[in-house]
């Protein structure tokens, strides 16, 4: 049984078919790479999967539950979390608070117990702090828990976004260009972190990336999108040597 099964997904903006006939099947525990030239529709595909855009056609099944057309909030509750290509952190809040907001739906107490500081507040806040710090530790950010998130260096902001997404306890994690703007050392470190969180949190990952070293290094399967349509799909060795793919990336 596939964890995510997408059939014939499509959306158009005006006359432009941004994504169409999009079919992908991701098994539990897989690490899938989604690549393609600029403007191929990769981020649009992410936005369709997370409910930012409502698809014109097609069907998305997550663990056999139809999540097509649900809102972003509901889809996150069903178990899909994502990061963004242009970092979207809660800038005025601390690193720890960013992760605690990710924990929002998993540790609950009422607004009233928060305002009146009832025992539920102290108990749950402590649990939240501990859980959030555990997640930050995996990303090596626990020392900076009290730093304002916008004061973090770029690479760490990217990591914090992944940490926040992980905090929502997803089945499927969508990473939109996690290594964008990172230097080779940072990218290597990120690859280790991704491998680590896969094992530790048993999470399935679909990632968009332009850094072929990263894609070839950690992805088990690769899907190539070009002009909104599938160009190739399969094992990295086959896909990256596919002449069509090379042509799409490098031109003739």
């Amino acid at each position: 049984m596939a964890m995510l099964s997408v059939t014939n997904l499509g959306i158009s903006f005006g006359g432009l078919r941004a994504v169409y006939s999009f079919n992908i099947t991701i098994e539990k525990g897989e690490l899938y790479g989604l690549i393609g030239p600029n403007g191929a529709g990769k981020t649009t595909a992410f936005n369709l999967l997370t409910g930012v855009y409502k698809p014109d056609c097609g069907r998305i099944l997550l663990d056999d539950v139809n999540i097509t057309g649900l809102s972003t909030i509901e889809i996150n509750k069903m178990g899909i979390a994502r990061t963004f290509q242009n970092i979207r952190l809660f800038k005025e809040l601390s690193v720890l608070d960013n992760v605690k907001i990710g924990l929002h739906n998993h540790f609950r107490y009422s607004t009233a117990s928060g305002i009146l500081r009832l025992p539920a507040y102290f108990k749950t806040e402590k649990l939240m702090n501990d859980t959030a710090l555990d997640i930050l530790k995996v990303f090596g950010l626990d020392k900076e828990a009290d730093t304002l998130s916008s004061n973090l260096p770029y690479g760490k902001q990217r990591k914090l976004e992944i940490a926040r997404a992980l905090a929502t306890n997803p089945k499927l994690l969508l990473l939109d260009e996690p290594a964008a703007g990172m230097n080779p050392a940072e990218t290597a470190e990120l690859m280790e972190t991704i491998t680590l969180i896969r094992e530790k949190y048993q999470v399935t990952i679909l990632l968009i990336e332009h850094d072929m070293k990263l894609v070839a290094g950690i992805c088990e399967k690769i899907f190539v999108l070009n002009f909104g349509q599938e160009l190739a799909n399969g094992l990295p060795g086959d896909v990256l040597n596919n002449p069509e793919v090379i042509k799409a990336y490098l031109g003739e």
Partner: protein
Amino acid sequence: MNNRGNIFERINKNTRTNLITIGIIILAYMVFQIMIVTGNLTNLMQGLLVPLCYYSILAISLNLTVGILGELSLGHAGFMCVGAFTGAFFSNSMVDIIHNTFLRFSLAIITGAIFAALFGTLIGVVVLRLRGDYLAIVTLAFGEIIKNVINVLYIGFDSRGFHISMKDSVSLNLLGDGKVILNGAKGITGTPNDTTFTVSVILLIAIYLIITNLIHSRSGRAIMAIRDNRIAAESVGIDITKFKLLAFTLSASMAGIAGVLYSHNISSLMATPKNFGYNMSIMILVFVVLGGIGNIRGSIIAAVLLTLLPEYLRFMNDYRMLIYAIVLIIMMIFNWNPACIAWRKSHPIQRLLRTKIKKEA
């Protein structure tokens, strides 16, 4: 000493900020009380004590909308107006029934808060779908509409119950034992003057605590997440509408409480452009902006300074508003200019205090 640490340094930073602020409020309260008892406080100042409190409450409650939720509201005086009239209406109709002042006033405050919250929810449901400028325009319109509706509203009651009219007080058809409570543009007169400085200070502290506690709780974080990045907040499963509405309603109900304090501090309550109009909403916004958006303590300081300043400048009639404006500009520069912020950080009073405490220890 290192293991134990200074008790002041060991407690949570937020709790420390709260304690300092509440300490300052209580200290100011005691100083004023002593001055009243010893007869050192001028009449002008005595009359300003309650306004200082309700202006502070208005400022911190608007800061919840503007600073924490990040939405611009220009109709805060409208919610204050709702609270003022419903609270005064309640007290006026209950003045012969509930004789215990404390009980009656508490219920009036609750009434004012609930009605303001109700209006806050009604407006919020419609308006919070809008963003930025649109929200500001609609809330501005709401403030004006409320004021004008109250000016044509006549409510009275007699042994048969309540009567409502939008024409004049005669068309209420009251019996001989009847009493007009809300008399259109003449407003509500004869509200018992239940507001005292003590009650106002207690409410100010309570509302300050409610807001700061909210900010540092799960719901408060959700509200600030929406402010900082709505799309990211949605992506981690935060219910945008719910938390926006929560903050907006809470902010409205607190403005309502300030309104109740206001209406029980004056002899005749009328909805005029001066007290509940556009200018009032803007003035509250000025408190918030100058005190620092999102800075609750700053709102109180700004509200107090900017309420006292025009009163104390009365002796130079012609230049009063000129100096007021210059002070606004200076405060703005001091608060937000990067050079000033750097200067403040290098000369913090806090650090001076801390080194002193350490030396003594």
